[in-house]
């Protein structure tokens, strides 16, 4: 049982970091092994923002192996060297935690595949997100803990999705936490509640087609599946509709791009989702109390039906 939440402001920006924190904290009883945010902030759109990690959180409850912090420094140095070799200029650098970094990069390239492959060829390094608006922040603990740790409550933007995780089929670590970046597409992220039963079959097929998996979490398949569909020319909505039959199991998932937010629910409708929709705001979550954290007044909400796919633009 995990909890997912998302919201999109249409035609304006808002304090999406704080809003999503409230929504995810309301869902913490659905799992607080880890919490993740995919925030689409207001930026000038000139530089890429790369969120990446050079190690794992090995704190209490983690399933990761303890490493010396000096290893993180070594990995960071190699990342810096590699970026320089590729002609990518780091405009701004933040190291929130020893293992977690945020770079603003001046880099003029459309295809992020080669870029990502080179960075992630460095052992222990994983790009959590890459985009001109998207920032994926995920770590162990509940929504408030992660929000406080990374100072997310002041992030202003148009839309966001997030995930409160109860780890079941894979480890308690950052690499298995949601959201997943839709590698190698800029600004695509996914969160999922459910279980995919044809994960390994799909993974083998997609890996043979050159797609990359970083974890053994079944939810990552959705991000990779959609990325592959889009690589082959499908729109986001077409990819999502294909996933209703391409993915087997029970799922409700959200996917976000630079300017849109979508949801899909499997044909069994086995996983919950409550949705509020108005002209200027769409808010949705696994439970109504998530929506109530941003809209405490009485509102009209509903459960999307089985096999439903919806996409909203900012």
């Amino acid at each position, binding site marked *: 049982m995990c909890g997912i939440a998302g919201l999109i402001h249409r035609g304006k920006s808002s304090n999406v970091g704080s809003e999503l924190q409230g929504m995810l904290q309301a869902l913490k009883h659905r799992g607080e092994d880890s919490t993740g945010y995919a925030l689409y902030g207001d930026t000038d759109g000139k530089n890429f923002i790369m969120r990446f990690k050079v190690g794992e959180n090995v704190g209490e409850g983690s399933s990761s192996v303890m490493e010396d912090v000096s290893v993180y420094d070594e990995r960071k140095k190699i990342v810096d060297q590699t970026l320089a070799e590729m002609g990518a200029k780091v405009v701004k650098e933040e190291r929130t935690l020893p293992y977690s970094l945020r770079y603003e990069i001046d880099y003029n390239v459309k295809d992020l595949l080669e870029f990502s492959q080179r960075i992630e060829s460095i052992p222990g390094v994983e790009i959590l997100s890459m985009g001109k608006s998207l920032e994926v922040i995920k770590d162990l603990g509940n929504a408030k803990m992660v929000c406080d740790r990374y100072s997310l409550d002041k992030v202003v933007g148009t839309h966001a999705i997030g995930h409160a995780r109860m780890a079941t089929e894979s480890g308690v670590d950052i690499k298995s936490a949601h959201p997943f970046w839709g590698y190698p597409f800029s600004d695509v992220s996914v969160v999922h509640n459910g279980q995919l039963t044809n994960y390994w079959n799909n993974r083998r097929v997609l890996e043979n087609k050159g797609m990359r998996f970083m974890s053994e979490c079944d939810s990552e398949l959705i991000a990779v599946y959609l990325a592959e569909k889009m690589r082959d020319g499908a729109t986001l909505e077409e990819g999502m509709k294909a996933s209703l039959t391409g993915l087997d199991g029970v799922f409700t998932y959200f996917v976000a791009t630079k300017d849109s937010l979508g949801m899909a629910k499997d044909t069994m409708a086995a996983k919950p989702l409550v949705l509020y929709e108005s002209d200027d705001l769409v808010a949705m979550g696994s*439970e109504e109390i998530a929506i109530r954290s941003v809209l405490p007044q009485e509102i009209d909400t509903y459960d999307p039906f*089985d096999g439903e796919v919806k996409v909203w633009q900012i």
Partner: protein
Amino acid sequence: MANLKTVSKKSKAQSMGMHTEVLTGRTQQKFFNPDEAENFYYFGTYDVDFNKRTDLDVKDMTAPEANKEIDNLMSQGYGTIVIKNPQGKHSLGVGILNKLNLIFEGSLGYFGMGSCDGPIVRINGRVGWSCAENLMAGKVVIEKNAGSCFGAAIRGGDLICKGSVGARTGIDMKGGTIIIGGDAGAFTGFMMQRGRIIILGDVGINLGDSMYDGTIFVGGEIGSYGSDAVDAELTKSDQDWLKRKLKVAEIGENFDVSKMKKIVAGKKLWNYDNLEPTEKKGAI
């Protein structure tokens, strides 16, 4: 070992290894004593006056706190309680085994009004998953939409949603009536065993999948039939019953019930042993 033919009834039971403690619970004590049938009541229920009314703001309460306060108000004789600011909280109003007029001014989360027996409830909002699960008797009216598993395993009473409901409505229901003013999701009436479901709008795929018994009436389109769900003739008495029920439910009063579809169990999945006593089949 004692001689069973000569010992008294009590010691015979003891000799056979049966304990003699007084069993508690309504099934053991009440159902089998016709003399006490008139005096039947649940332990911990109260005499309430429907004209005695009060408000309860649960904004800053947890669900257990709110439910305890409802119980406390009933103990003071309040028969009409208006709940303010439920704000989608889970498990509100569960386990009320009392006559009560309960009004929620807002929406409930999951498991609202679960395991109740007797109250008349109006929810001026929406409800989440598993509303009124295991309802035994009474009436629950939802003014807006409802989530999945609406009325799961209800035994009796009327459960009315004026909006649309999610998947698996009436799953495993064993009695009572569920009325939906809007549309219903997939697997409606899944494994239902008795009772009736009325849907005025459309219904999703696998309607009545693996239903043992009971009846489903649908006013709109059906996504698909589930395993062993079959059409049946809509009789005159069905139509009269539907008109009465919709009128009492204050929903779809002008709905043309003559065009509704009636779905029942084909009973091809029934696989009971022929040697089994017939009364056992009846119980199922």
